[in-house]
Every structure is written in structure tokens, then in C-alpha cells.
């Protein structure tokens, strides 16, 4: 079965510091990978998605970037954090075309709670 790992679980960072959040997946190959942010009182907001190694699409212009150096690794980064970057960051996967129907939904990681101070 698919599993998705995110770390760290919580992070407190000062304004202006860099950020690196990592997401790795197991039990599937060639998945679509997603980074979402969930802010208090707001719905999940799609930040980036990737359909393959080195392929990144951004949905929202912002202070963040993403990379996919390996098939099962997805990284969210920032060079300089802003206060507005605080939130709950979630990585999600969707099996690739050869993995079966997309209709089984996205599998989400356990999330990273980021607080920028």
C-alpha cells in the first residue's frame, strides 16, 4: 500500500530564514505529487504539483519553490521565510496513470506545522 512520509512534524523558524520540507513516498511509482497549505479558517490551497522528476508546476505565485529530484521525493523550499508563510503544509500523492484509477483520491502525509516568528 502507498505510504507518504513528511518531516519534520513541527517547525518554528525566524523570519528571513530558509526552509526545506521533505516528502517521500513508498509503495508506488511515478505518482503525481502535490504540496498543499492549510491556514487557519481557510481551505486547503494547492501550492505546487509534479507529474514527474524535475517537472514542477506552481499554482500560486509566492515566496516558495518546489523540486522533485527523485521519483518518490518532493521538496518544498524557501530562501527567506515571511510571517505569512506560517501554516500547515501537506504533501499528497496520486497514483500515476499506470497505477490505476485516480478516483481513489489523494493520499496525504501527516503534515508539517510551520510557525514563522
Amino acid at each position, binding site marked *: 500500500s502507498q505510504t507518504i512520509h513528511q518531516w519534520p512534524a513541527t517547525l518554528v523558524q525566524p523570519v528571513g530564514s530558509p526552509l526545506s520540507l521533505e516528502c517521500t513516498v513508498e509503495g508506488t511509482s511515478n505518482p*503525481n505529487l502535490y504540496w498543499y497549505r492549510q491556514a487557519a479558517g481557510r481551505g486547503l490551497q494547492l501550492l505546487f504539483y509534479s507529474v514527474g522528476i524535475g517537472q514542477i508546476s506552481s*499554482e500560486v505565485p509566492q515566496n516558495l519553490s518546489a523540486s522533485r529530484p527523485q521519483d518518490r521525493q518532493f521538496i518544498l523550499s524557501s530562501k527567506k521565510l515571511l510571517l505569512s508563510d506560517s501554516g500547515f503544509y501537506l504533501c499528497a500523492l496520486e497514483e500515476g496513470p499506470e497505477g490505476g484509477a485516480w478516483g481513489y483520491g489523494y493520499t496525504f502525509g501527516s503534515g508539517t506545522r510551520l510557525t514563522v516568528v
Partner: protein
Amino acid sequence: EDQVTQSPEALRLQEGESSSLNCSYTVSGLRGLFWYRQDPGKGPEFLFTLYSAGEEKEKERLKATLTKKESFLHITAPKPEDSATYLCAVHLPPQGGSQGNLIFGKGTKLSVKP
């Protein structure tokens, strides 16, 4: 603009008191509608996918239904362990160079008291 609206924002029930959560959507094209459960500090957990109007799916005390404009999550005789935030999401088809993706509602926070 594609939108997903969930109501109510919060719902408090007594154990055994059945109720329904609503998810209404205005989207240009729908590939599917998803329901998720999210516990505090955790990622959403997949519950159901519905594809077409009239479709129903059940899992334990939960039953999801879909019409052309909305979906309902019915909770029958809830228990305290059903307390969580329930999220609705619609899956849109790809447009232009964009990958189809999920648009989430803000969720309904359900509290079930013993």
C-alpha cells in the same frame, strides 16, 4: 470561478443524533467529488469518491450522496469518535497547461458529545 462551499462551519451533536453535512459546488466540469476526514494536527484521510449525480456510497455510519450541485454526508447515530473536520473536494479536469486538481471546501468541524 470554481467554488466549493461547505455548511455548516461547525456542528455539535449528541451521541446518536443523526445529521447531514452539505457541500455545494459551482465548477465548470466535474471529474469527481471527494470526502475526507481530518483529525486535529493530521493529514486528511480519504473517505469517498462520487462521480455522478444519484450516486451513493456508505462506510459504517457515514453515507455520501451526490446531486448535480451538491453533496451530502449523512451521519447516522454518530459516536464521539466521529468527531473530526470533514472536508469536501471537487476534482476538476485539466485546463490548458494546468493539471486537473482538487479544490477543497473549508470543512465542517463535527463534535459529537457522549
